Structures are given as C-alpha cells and as structure tokens.
C-alpha cells in the first residue's frame, strides 16, 4: 500500500514554518514532563507522534494551543510567539483545530450547533453562513444526515467525525489530534482514520498523536518517537519502522507491532 496511496511529501512548503519549538521545557510541579523539545513543522507536513503512555505526547501538543503552559523555551505558531498575551493565544486558537481522545462534543447542543458555535462566536460569522459551512464539513466527514441529532445519539466513530468537522468549521491552518481513535471500538477506527487520511490528502498540516502505525505509514511524512519527555527519534516513516536506530524505539515498536 505504501507506494500508491502514500501522500506525496511535495505538499510540504519548505520555507513556510508553521510551528517552531526551541528548547521547550515544562514541569508539572517537580515532575519534568517535557525536556528540551526542539521541533520545526512546515506548512503541509503530517507528523505522527508516538511513544509509551505518560511520555508527554499529549502535553506536547497541548502546549501548541496553550491548553498547557510551557515554562522555558519558545514556541511560535505561524510566527506568533506563545506567551501570556491572551490576544495572541486567541489568535492562535482560531487557526489551530484540536481533536481529543474523548471527542469532547457539547452534549447539550445538536451536531449542527456544535459545529456553528465557534464560527458564530469567535469568527462572528452570520448564523446562516456558519450553518452552510457546517453542512459542508459534515458532508466532508460523511454524516450530514445527523446534523439535527444530539451527540449522545451517535456512535463513537460518528462522534469523532463530528469533532473533526467541528474543528474544520473554523477553517484551521493546522490540526492537532490527540489519540483520536484510542477510545473507539475496533470497527469504528477505520471510518475516523479514513477521514483523517482524506484531510491529509487535501494538504492539511497536522500533528497526530496516535499508535495507528498503518496510518503513520500511509500519510505521515515524519514520525516522532517520544519517551520520558524527550524526542528520542524522528525519521521518515519507512525508515522509522524498518530501521529504527535507538534501542528504546526498537523496544516500543516490538511491543506495539509484534505479538
């Protein structure tokens, strides 16, 4: 499958930097959760982050939209530095979509309302336009017919696709995925991954924390392996899987791939 459906890496715009993290460190109390993270992501890149549980993957991507605060180093998203300036944080959050492990849809709003909320309140889009945009993206994730249901009435896979559509409605420049398929029953994983693949094929920049190695092979142009708060290894997917360099990577891959 590698050759044909592999998203070509020529979508990457080399000189347009989306994210730059330099010497980023973060602590939870005394616990040093991110250690000297240096990472540059160009426009159009699809990055998969993997690593054992508790290695700091979620914390890393949550720093990118300031759901977590880093204490040392600099993070720039689209050239805007993340610091305590609330206006800049809001500016970045408008451009960065996030999809969570547990979907985090708003249960008291219909699917359509979930999708129009941010455009209406954050982008000040008129309601009718916001609804048109929402329907466009609900069609994109193939559930326009569920628009007037509530999240509780949908299956897990459908909910996660709604969550993706909800993020897309803000027309973000970058999407962050934090283990989007880990809470799903096996038969629903594929529908979510398919949605993500089609997003990647359209050239969306994305950073995915996931253990779906098939997905990584198919769409990622870089795989990053984290352990104990550090980036241990990063490489192109073929190389990463076939020829891992570090012992920790080898151990991890043997654990998730081999049985």
């Amino acid at each position, binding site marked *: 499958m590698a050759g044909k459906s592999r998203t070509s890496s020529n979508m990457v715009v080399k000189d347009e930097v989306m994210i730059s993290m330099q010497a980023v460190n973060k602590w939870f109390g005394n616990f040093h959760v991110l250690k000297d993270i240096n990472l540059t992501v160009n426009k159009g890149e699809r990055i998969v982050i993997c690593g054992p549980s508790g290695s700091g993957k979620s914390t890393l991507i949550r720093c990118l939209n300031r759901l977590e605060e880093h204490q040392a180093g600099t993070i720039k998203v689209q050239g805007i530095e993340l610091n305590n300036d609330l206006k800049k944080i809001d500016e970045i*959050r408008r451009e960065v979509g996030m999809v969570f492990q*547990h979907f985090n*849809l708003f249960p*008291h709003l219909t699917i359509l309302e979930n999708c129009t*909320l941010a455009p209406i309140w954050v982008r000040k889009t008129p309601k009718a336009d916001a609804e048109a945009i929402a329907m466009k993206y609900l069609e994109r994730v193939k559930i326009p017919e569920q628009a007037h249901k*509530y999240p509780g009435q949908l299956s897990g896979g459908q909910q996660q696709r709604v969550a993706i559509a909800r993020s897309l409605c803000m027309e973000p420049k970058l999407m962050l995925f934090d283990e989007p398929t880990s809470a799903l029953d096996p038969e629903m994983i594929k529908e979510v991954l398919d949605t993500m693949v089609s997003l990647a094929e359209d050239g969306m920049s994305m950073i995915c924390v996931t253990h779906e190695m098939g997905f990584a092979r198919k769409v990622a142009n870089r795989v990053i392996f984290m352990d104990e708060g550090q980036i241990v290894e990063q490489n192109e997917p073929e190389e990463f899987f076939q020829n891992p360099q570090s012992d920790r990577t080898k151990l991890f891959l043997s654990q998730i791939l081999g049985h």
Partner: protein
Amino acid sequence: MTQNSHNSVFVRKVDAETLPPPQNEMGIRGWLWRNLLYSVTDYSSVSAALRSLAMIFFTVLVSYVGLTQLWLLLDFVFFSAVWSDPTGIKREACWTLSQGGTLPDDWHAACWPFIFAKLKFLAYGPYPMDELWRVNVTGLLGLAGLCWVLIEALPYRRLVGVLMLTAYPVIALILLTGGASEANYFNATAYIFVGLALITVGRLGQRDLLGIVASDFASIIGFVGWSLIVFQVLMLIFSVDVGLKPVGTGDWGGLMITLVVAVTGIVVSLPLGVILALGRRSNMPVARLLCTIFIEFWRGVPLISVLFMASVMIPLFLPEGVNFDKLMRALIGVMLFSAAYMAEVVRGGLQAIDKGQYEAAEAMGLTYWQSMRQIILPQALTHVIPGIVNTFIGLFKDTTLVSIIGLFDLLGAGKSAIADASWSSPVQAISIYLFVGFIFFIFCFGMSRYSIFMENKLSKSRSH
C-alpha cells in the same frame, strides 16, 4: 434448534424467532402485576410466604391510615365546614350549641366565612382599599409575563423575558409605591457625570490606551460607571410624579409582600449565585477569596439574624436622617442569603462538568465568558435543576421570617387575622393556618412540578 452444549462447534441454521413479551409485562395486567401483585403472590417457600403476607399487611395498613386521614381532612375542609354567614353574625356562625351557637356540639371543621371575610387582608395586608387595582395590575402583568416566558410555543419569549427583568420591576415599583419619591437633582446629575467619566476611562483602558489599566480592570471600572448611571436614572424615574397616591411599604402586607420578597429573592439569587460560584472556582485568587468569604459568611448565619440585623443594626450605622426602607433592607438580606446557597448548588453543577468540555471550548478560541455562557452553565444548571428549585422553595417558605422585623407577610397577616375578636371561635386559628398553608403549598408544588417538567424535557432532548 437443538444445541449440544458438549460440542464446541455450533453453526446456527435457523434464526431464532422474535417473540412477544410474556403477558405479565404488558397492559393493565402487567401494570397491576409489577406494582401490586408481584410482591404478594409468592408462597413457594416459608420465607417467601411470610414476606408476601407482611407486604399485604403493610399495604392494607398504609392504605387504611392514609385514606382515613385524607377523609378527615376533606371532611374538615369541605363536607362539614361552614360555608356562609348569610345573617352576618360573624363569629357565632362557627359556634357550637354549648358555645352559644347553632352547630352540634361535636362539630369541628373549617370556618370559611371567616376566611372569606379576611381574604382581602390576607392578599394585600393594610394596603389602601381604593388603590388595590394597582396591586392587581402589577400581579396580573407579572403573571402574564411569567406565563409568556414559561410557555414554549409563544413567540418573542426572549424579548418578553428581558422586559420582565428590566422594565417590569420599574413599573411594578412605581405602581406599588406610587413613585414620586424625593430626589436630589443636583446630586443625581453629578453622579451621572461621574458615571460617564468612569465609562470613558473603562473604554480607553480596554483599548490599551492608558497603559497601566489592565483590560479586566477596565471592564470593572466601566461596569461601575454603568451601574451608577442606571441607578441614578432609575432614581430620577421613581421621582416622577405619575399622579398616583403614594403608598409606603409599611402599608404593604399579606401574600403581596410574600410574593415581592420571594420573587425578588428568586430572580436575583440565581444570577448572583452563578457569579459567586464562578468566582469561587476562578483562577484569580482575589476573586476566589472574596467569593468564598461571602458565601461562607452568609451560609454561616441564620436568616432570622440576618433580617434582625438588617432592621436593627443597619440603621445604627447609617447617618442621621437617612431612611432606608425596611422592606428594602429585608429584601437585600434575603437576596444575599439565598444567593450564597444558590452559589453552592451551582458550584456542585460546575464540578460535574467534564474537564474536556472546558478544553474543547478553550481550544476553539471561545473566551471565558463565552464558554461559560454557551457551554458550561447550560449543562451545569441543567444538572442541578432539582437543587435550584429546592433553594427557590426554601426561599419561598423562608419569607415568613420577615414577620420578625414587623413586615406582615401572608403568615403574619393570617396571625393578625386570628387576633380579630369579632371572629373568635375554636376553629378560627386552624382554619386560617390550613388556608395559608394551602396557599404556600400551591406555590411550592407549582415550582416543583415545573422543575420536573423541565428536567424531563431536557433529558428527553439530549439523551439516546
């Protein structure tokens, strides 16, 4: 269809039939079975038989006691009650033979003519008779507005709601008091200018033009400015002489005062409680500390002492000649008191909201207030509807405590009606207490039913 349990290989060849449920599950028979017979029909063993017999015994006992009590009540209130006093003999209409009246000696039931005679007093207290239409208009207006807001099918519900919270209180106050309060036009103008100045400062601060003033602080300054102006404009409106006879709050009483105190308390305590609850959970240490102190203080003192302090202590601190209306003081006491309780109820709801909801709202770029308004509060308040209504009902009944500071609420009016010797009889007190209790029950039960209706509606629309 047979399945050999020893054989581990099995392939179904014929689909299992879809059958209707057993008779016991359906229809009237099913209902009777589940709710009545299920627990009393099992005699298959000694212990089951004993249990069934015990259930029969208790069912009969409880039904008997309940029904006889209900009969006693109905008999007292309706069947044996005296309903009219055509000859105008007042108290003697409810006297037995041995007391000098005409009723049989074992008669003991409600004395309705007494209640009919006191109805106006129970409703309005000593409010001047010729001006009662003002109270009626206020009440009807309020009722109409309330129904409009509560009935889902009507249009413009939001607009009506906003009017009920802004214009209605002003109209009600002018109608009930007659307006034409004293006003110091010079001071009012001065305050309005101060308010305008504060708003300007706030605006400039929000645009970072003043440098030092942080934008949060600027909005507070702006808010203070607005409050000042609104307050002064209201005072000016109240000072307009609309040609109504002034009626001081000292002349208010009965159900009217109960409703004024309860409705104001209910309407103010919810938003105030929400703000206090948010403050107590906020990241800002100062806001958190202030809200916590406020809540713990008001929860820590009994309402009676709050009211007592409001009526006795506050005047001691006010300068000579400043007369702060007694009802107003009680109102403020009740509002702050119930807001503290409300805050804790709302905080419980906030705690039940998953952290992911906050994060999703934040990640989309919603501001704090937007995410509270659109995401968190709608869910949190829905979770705690029973607690909120519980607080409302408690507040409604606690209004009876205002009689401690000399306000004649419904119960107080009832008590002073009992003191009327021209109606004195052995059933005088019990008649009026039953009646007053019934009025309280109607209001509280109504709130309870509406809350259950809301809960069902919300849970229906949101779950599977």
